[in-house]
């Protein structure tokens, strides 16, 4: 049964939301609903479901490119600093070794590459995802706390050109949703 969330207000609607039994049903529902021409879909799952990106038609993550840039920055910074500190700012001969050489710089260049890449992947991921974001309309869904447990949820967002709350609820039910709700913003 569809129900209107009683916290609905004049800010409008976020989406029509349907909950599905498991990940397999969810994926086939996404395929069916996209086939009907809906494009603004978002799925919420307790763990990364394989095949869901293909079903949603979302493009692969480009995070890798960002991380490569971070890694390159780390390598360059390390090499530049070791050269500047050892050969320019404070040149002192130790153990008859040259003031700067690529070989002895490798370990620190490597470590800084890893360090910057690691920061890049965590903070890059948060940046792309827009996190931290402590408020999101999906939290208005009355069973939002089930998503991290065992809720497989599909939202047809109100920004979809075809959006019509009652119609969307029917579509979700038709695709096998066990519970549906219209969620306010």
């Amino acid at each position, binding site marked *: 049964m569809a129900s209107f969330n009683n916290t609905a207000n004049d800010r409008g609607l976020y989406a029509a939301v349907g909950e599905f039994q498991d990940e*397999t049903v969810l994926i086939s529902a996404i395929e069916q609903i996209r086939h009907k021409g809906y494009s603004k879909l*978002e*799925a*919420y*799952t*307790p*763990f*990364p*479901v*394989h095949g*869901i*990106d293909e079903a949603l038609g*979302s493009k*692969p*993550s480009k*995070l*890798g490119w960002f*991380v490569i840039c971070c*890694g390159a920055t780390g390598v360059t910074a390390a090499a530049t*600093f*070791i050269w500047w*500190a*050892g050969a320019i700012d*404070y040149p*002192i001969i*130790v*153990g008859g070794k040259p003031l700067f050489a690529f070989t*002895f*710089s490798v*370990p*620190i260049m*490597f*470590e*800084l590459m*890893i*360090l910057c*890449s*690691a*920061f890049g*992947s*965590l903070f890059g*991921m*948060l940046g*792309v*995802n827009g*996190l*931290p*974001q*402590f*408020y*999101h309309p*999906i*939290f208005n869904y009355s069973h*939002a*706390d*089930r*998503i*991290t*447990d*065992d809720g497989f949820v599909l939202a047809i967002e109100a920004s979809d050109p075809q959006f019509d709350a009652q119609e969307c609820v029917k579509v979700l039910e038709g695709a096998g949703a066990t519970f549906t709700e219209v969620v306010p913003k």
Partner: protein
Amino acid sequence: MAELAKAELLNIIREECNPPMLEGNMSYHDITDQISSITEWKKTPTAWWIMISITGTLLLLLLSMLTYLVSRGIGVWGNNSPAGWAWDITNFVWWIGIGHAGTLISAILFLLRQKWRTAINRAAEAMTIFAVACAAIFPLFHTGRPWRAIYWLFPIPNTYLHMWQNYRSPLEWDVFAVSTYGTVSVLFWYTGLIPDLAILRDRSKPGLRKVIYGVLSLGWRGAANHWKHYEKAYMILAGISTPLVLSVHTIVSFDFAVSVIPGWHTTIFPPYFVGGAVFSGFAMVMTLLLITRWLLHLENIITMRHLELMNKVILATGTLVGYSYATEFYIAWYSGDPYEQFGFLNRIVGPYWWAWWTMFICNCVIPQFFWVKKMRRNIAVMFIISITTNIGMWFERFVIIVLSLHRDFLPSSWGYFKPTWVDICTYIGTFGLFLTLYLLFVKFCPIIAVAEVKGTLSNQTHTDHVYAHYLESHEVSAQESHGIV
């Protein structure tokens, strides 16, 4: 074919190709419930309070020893010429090595698609961070003035030294290796924790607890679009942690290998150190998980299969370590260098013969019991071996460090190192730090990677469907099925 036979066949195929990771028929909700409930104790068990009072006391012992050391100077430790490095650096290398298993489990096994890692990776990663914290104490306090050491170790502009570090020195490389390792381990661990902290947030009643888990989980909502980037980030972190973990113990071994001391100056050190690190780390994961699993009733998630697989890793790495010892001795003999030859003979029959033999028996002999399947699946046996392994690995570092230093080129400078009570109490104290942090982790964090275990379960169910579908569409006899298997 009869229905019954098909069901039997499916079971055979499951057991052989896709053995279940979890015992019992668990749903996603059961997994959430079982793991989260540990952090939701209404009344914290008395056993936890007893344990934390003991480990807390040991932690206080550590703090008093460090205070004593700072107030009196590092002369309170037993290291002195000729053994300028002794228990401190032994403990440092030992703790760092223990940390390596966590990264191996979370990163390398992830890249190798070893799904069984999901049951143990969270606890192992936590252990990595705590072990690195224990390890860092020793070199930091060995400087004698830890509050100033930050300027000696890191290139921080200051008006007090007017100079930079020597980047040609392996000790400086080590500073970068260990601090990067600690930082990346924390980042990787936290990345894995975000979705699980969101589970705890969603299960908490409104209040302080919900606010804390809410802030820590950064508003995670499980959107498919988020998981996509999240999985990418996780894979990259695993990908960069893999060479990182290999580089850390390689660079630790450079501290020795780049010098000219007989017994240290060898090219085998990097792989030998990494192998040993994984060996001792897995043993420590085993010791802790056996206790955790027993106390928190996690037998259905950390199954006998997981333990057996870990024992296989211990056997393999233990054998690698044994092989490295043999290579070292062979090269010492083959080099024709009298100092090198004496150094190695001195290890077996010299004044510290007992240290070498303890190491040899614990590392090379005892793990060989794991060739027998019954031994690999016996809790008492694996518990004992996990402990002897870490005793052996501690002695390995002691042998490498003290036994190489105490008798150098000139017999007039030979000596015999003995630890002081401060050495001993500081080492015992680090267990206090390690175990206290572990107990706090058990109480406040999900100790099993819940979202990852669910992913594994989903994968399992899917694969089972594929097999069932195959059997439906193909008429296969029981005999043929062995061919498929």
